[in-house]
């Protein structure tokens, strides 16, 4: 018989439980109802601070769970344990066989007089951020606005960063003598303070707010230290308290510091009621982190399906990037173990602080703290509680953190977000997972924060899985290596390249890849000489092959802006050649159904009317979409059309490992969908935000913010570097998103290379792009001016001009569409 599970609370942990149940309950033993207080579906609260970049709640939304009765905006009000019945805020009665409390926690607001004034907020939900934003905008006075965050812990610094993202100067007030008192020691906090103060944060430690008073449109906060702060908003971020009121009302036991007391199976004193996440108290502990909550959700899912899983307690290690500063804390970070020894490296010049805590005999790692550079975290955390060989100082000494993964025991967790051990990953590799995406999908490792991805790669290498980078059977090199060979050796033809560096005659993989490399390096027209034979059909005929062997024609319409005269030429050409006409998703016009021999005639007319190749056929820049920006839109804050045209003309014809798309939006409303593009630009009041690595397609992905508020020259310089770095180093058919994901260090590394010039290659990248821009010539014009190239556009070598007999059309919705050969046409009466 089907039983009913009711989950109260739909935060990250409630969502994980619902998902785990639907994944595991393959026989449909449970019907699931979720009562969610918020009106939005579950979202990634850990990433809440990133909301201020886009104000798009959709970015944070977790994947919907199919097969769940999700009741948004409906909270549980009363629960009758005897009747196993819940009364909801909408007056409904819901009965349950099993009930799971996943109500999370609420922000703690210290009893400061004035805390209820308008302009005072907590920092917990998307609605909280919306309210803060509204207050900031309403403050609307000239000059820099200010905010105070009460609480200098992890969440307080996050909140301060969010305020900074809204254009405020934040003050952080912390009662303890240092920032992040729970995770970091004095030495680490000192460095952290230096680093965040450079980012326009003012830090006040060892003090608290005494009173908040209204002062005209603003507020004055008096600190116990005597300092007075003039601010526009106040955000309380002084910790969280478990939301256990429902449990208390039900008569369930709560812990000393709150939280529903549960056993190791996450069960409360009532056998039908469980509690998980931040509202639960396990073995006297209330965990304020998502990973233990996820682990509890998995335990309950297992129990409900007849298992005996237990929650073993959780690691409270944390690694984060606060305001761009790496902070990590793991194990016994404060050396509370009897006789514990500390080894510290504090490099004020480099801005890094590293400490390891070891046992009194210096043989066992107990914990540590890293600030400024936390790259050693993924290697050190799994070693906690284990014997270390050699000098503990070697673990944190600069360049000494290269602990071999081989020394890790099998039960050590490699991915702490999803509790995946080294043994599980080794098992998956043994069963045939041969790459990181494979490991991600079969073990879930690396799918949450991603910090263990380099370890996954290393484990693959240690297991002897050769990560082949060979382009195809004809070359042992990757595309990036071939690019360097071609660029560095002066080899300018495919035949020379394959003779010197490959074998055989080549194929449909290496030939177009090399053609693209040659085109990127500016070796003349794509149909010149031997290059013509390398091109895939689209590049060979400079048009897109469609399903019946005809081609489509797409003239460039930069930024989507076009004159009525040009529209008329396109319309006339389409009418004269009977082409099916469709507006594309990228603000262009697609003309379908042209035969090979018609292409030059069509293009002659388009070129004469001032149009040019749109490169819709190439692995090249396609389109830069735009909204109308300040030209017409009442919301636009910058001229998105002008920038889109400028970008499209600058990068037109650029051959790349995969097709490239871009867009420019004139304001945060994002009408051009710039975050769905390889590089997207969104206007701000101060300039442009540049996003990279987005795409639509099979696996849609939003682009990540690379830099914000830059001027047009800086923007273009960065896009130059980004595109050229991609063209040089990506694999064949690797989209920008996969390219960034596959990079060691991901977006941070990309930013280091192209913004901070960490490799010293930016001048090279820029000059390569300048060369491309200077050498651009319209490909179709090049064909029309060359009789030899024109001669290839013929239907039959022995009967030029004879139409292909296999091509025929029928009419649909007033336009011609192809009839497939060999499929009899059924004509409806």
């Amino acid at each position, binding site marked *: 018989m089907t039983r009913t599970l009711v989950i109260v609370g739909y935060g990250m942990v409630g969502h994980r439980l619902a998902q785990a149940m639907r994944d595991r309950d393959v026989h449909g033993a449970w019907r699931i109802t979720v009562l969610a207080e918020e009106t939005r579906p579950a979202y990634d609260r850990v990433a809440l601070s990133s909301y201020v970049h886009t104000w798009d709640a959709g970015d944070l939304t977790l994947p919907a769970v199919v097969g769940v009765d999700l009741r948004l905006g409906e909270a549980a009000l009363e629960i009758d344990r005897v009747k196993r019945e819940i009364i909801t805020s909408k007056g409904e009665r819901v009965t349950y066989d099993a009930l799971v409390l996943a109500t999370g926690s609420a922000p703690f607001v210290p009893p400061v007089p004035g805390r209820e004034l308008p302009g005072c907020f907590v920092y917990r939900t998307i609605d909280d951020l919306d309210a803060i934003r509204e207050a900031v905008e309403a403050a609307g006075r000239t000059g820099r606005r200010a905010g105070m965050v009460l609480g200098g812990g992890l969440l307080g610094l996050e909140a301060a960063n969010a305020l900074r993202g809204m254009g405020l100067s934040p003050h952080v007030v912390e009662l303890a003598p240092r920032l992040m008192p729970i995770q970091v020691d004095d030495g680490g906090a000192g460095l952290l303070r230096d680093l965040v103060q450079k980012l326009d944060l003012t830090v006040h430690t060892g003090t608290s707010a005494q009173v908040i008073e209204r002062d005209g449109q603003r507020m004055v906060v008096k600190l116990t230290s005597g300092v007075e702060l003039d601010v526009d908003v106040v955000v309380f971020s002084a910790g969280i308290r478990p939301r256990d009121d429902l449990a208390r009302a039900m008569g369930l036991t709560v812990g000393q510091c709150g939280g529903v007391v549960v056993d190791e199976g996450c069960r409360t004193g009532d056998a039908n009621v469980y509690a998980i996440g931040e509202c639960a108290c396990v073995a006297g502990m209330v965990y304020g982190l998502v990973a233990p909550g996820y682990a509890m959700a998995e335990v309950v899912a297992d129990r409900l399906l007849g298992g005996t899983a237990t929650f073993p307690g959780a690691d409270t290690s944390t690694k984060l990037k606060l305001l761009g500063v790496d902070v990590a804390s793991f194990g016994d970070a404060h050396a509370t173990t009897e006789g514990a020894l500390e080894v510290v490296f504090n490099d004020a010049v480099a801005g890094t602080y590293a400490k390891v805590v070891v046992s009194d005999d210096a043989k066992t790692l107990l914990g540590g703290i890293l600030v400024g550079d936390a790259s050693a975290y993924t290697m050190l955390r799994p070693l906690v509680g284990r014997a270390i060989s050699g000098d503990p100082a070697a673990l944190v000494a600069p360049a000494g953190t290269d602990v071999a993964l081989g020394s890790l025991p099998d039960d050590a967790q490699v991915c702490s977000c999803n509790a995946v051990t080294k043994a599980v990953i080794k098992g998956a590799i043994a069963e045939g997972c041969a790459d990181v995406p494979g490991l991600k999908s079969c073990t879930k490792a690396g799918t949450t924060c991603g910090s263990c991805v380099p370890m996954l790669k290393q484990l693959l290498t240690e297991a002897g899985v050769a990560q082949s980078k060979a382009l195809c*059977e*004809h070359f042992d090199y990757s595309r990036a290596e071939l690019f360097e060979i071609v660029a560095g050796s002066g080899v300018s033809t495919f*035949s020379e390249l394959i003779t010197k560096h490959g074998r*055989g*005659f*080549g*194929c*449909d993989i*290496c*030939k*177009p890849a090399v053609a693209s490399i040659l085109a990127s390096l500016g070796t003349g027209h794509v149909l010149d000489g*031997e290059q*013509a*034979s*390398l091109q*895939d*059909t*689209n590049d*060979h*005929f400079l048009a897109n*092959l469609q*399903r*019946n*062997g005809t081609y489509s024609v797409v003239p460039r319409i930069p930024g989507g802006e076009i004159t009525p005269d040009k529209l008329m030429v396109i319309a006339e050409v389409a009418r004269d050649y009977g082409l099916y006409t469709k507006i594309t998703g990228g603000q262009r016009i697609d003309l379908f159904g042209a035969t*090979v021999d018609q292409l030059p005639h069509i293009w002659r007319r388009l070129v004469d009317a001032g149009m040019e190749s749109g490169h819709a056929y190439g692995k090249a820049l396609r389109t830069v979409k735009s909204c109308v920006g300040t030209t017409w839109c009442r919301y636009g804050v910058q001229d998105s059309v002008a920038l889109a045209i400028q970008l499209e003309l600058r990068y037109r014809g650029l051959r790349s490992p995969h097709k490239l798309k871009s867009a420019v939006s004139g304001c945060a409303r994002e009408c051009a969908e710039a975050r769905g593009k390889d590089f997207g630009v969104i206007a701000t009041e101060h300039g442009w935000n540049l996003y990279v690595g987005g795409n639509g397609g099979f696996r849609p992905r939003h682009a990540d913010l690379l830099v914000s508020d830059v001027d047009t020259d800086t923007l273009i310089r960065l896009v130059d570097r980004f595109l050229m770095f991609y063209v040089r180093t990506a694999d064949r058919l690797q989209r920008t998103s996969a390219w960034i994901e596959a990079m060691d260090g991901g977006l941070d590394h990309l930013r280091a290379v192209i913004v901070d010039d960490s490799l010293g290659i930016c001048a090279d990248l820029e000059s390569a792009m300048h060369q491309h821009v200077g050498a651009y010539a319209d490909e179709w014009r090049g064909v029309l001016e060359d009789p030899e190239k024109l*001669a290839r556009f013929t*239907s*039959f*070598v*022995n*009967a030029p001009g*004879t139409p*292909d*007999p*296999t*091509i025929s059309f029928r009419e649909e919705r007033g336009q011609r569409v192809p009839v*497939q*050969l*060999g*499929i009899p046409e059924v004509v409806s009466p």
Partner: protein
Amino acid sequence: MSVQFPLTNLLPNRGVAALLPGDVQVAVFRTSDDRVYALSNIDPFSRAAVMSRGIVGDRDGVPVAVSPMHKNAFDLRTGVCVDDPEVSLAVFPVRVDAGMVMVGAP
């Protein structure tokens, strides 16, 4: 029944389409070692007459033409699809004589 055309119309490593009497389409290819092959021009997977526009190369040393439609490779000598030996293209007799390519009906 055959047709002929100058070899100079056929680039190395590329194909052209020729029309035999009876609307029969043939794809004629020239490899980099200057051999000439002729196969049906109609890709059996997509039913489109596009084989002549595919890339010419080799798979494990087997000379192939790859359909531009869904990238199926066909052995230039036998017409057999390398990825799916159940499927093959008709092979046409072809030779080069005095700078002219001559293709006949199979």
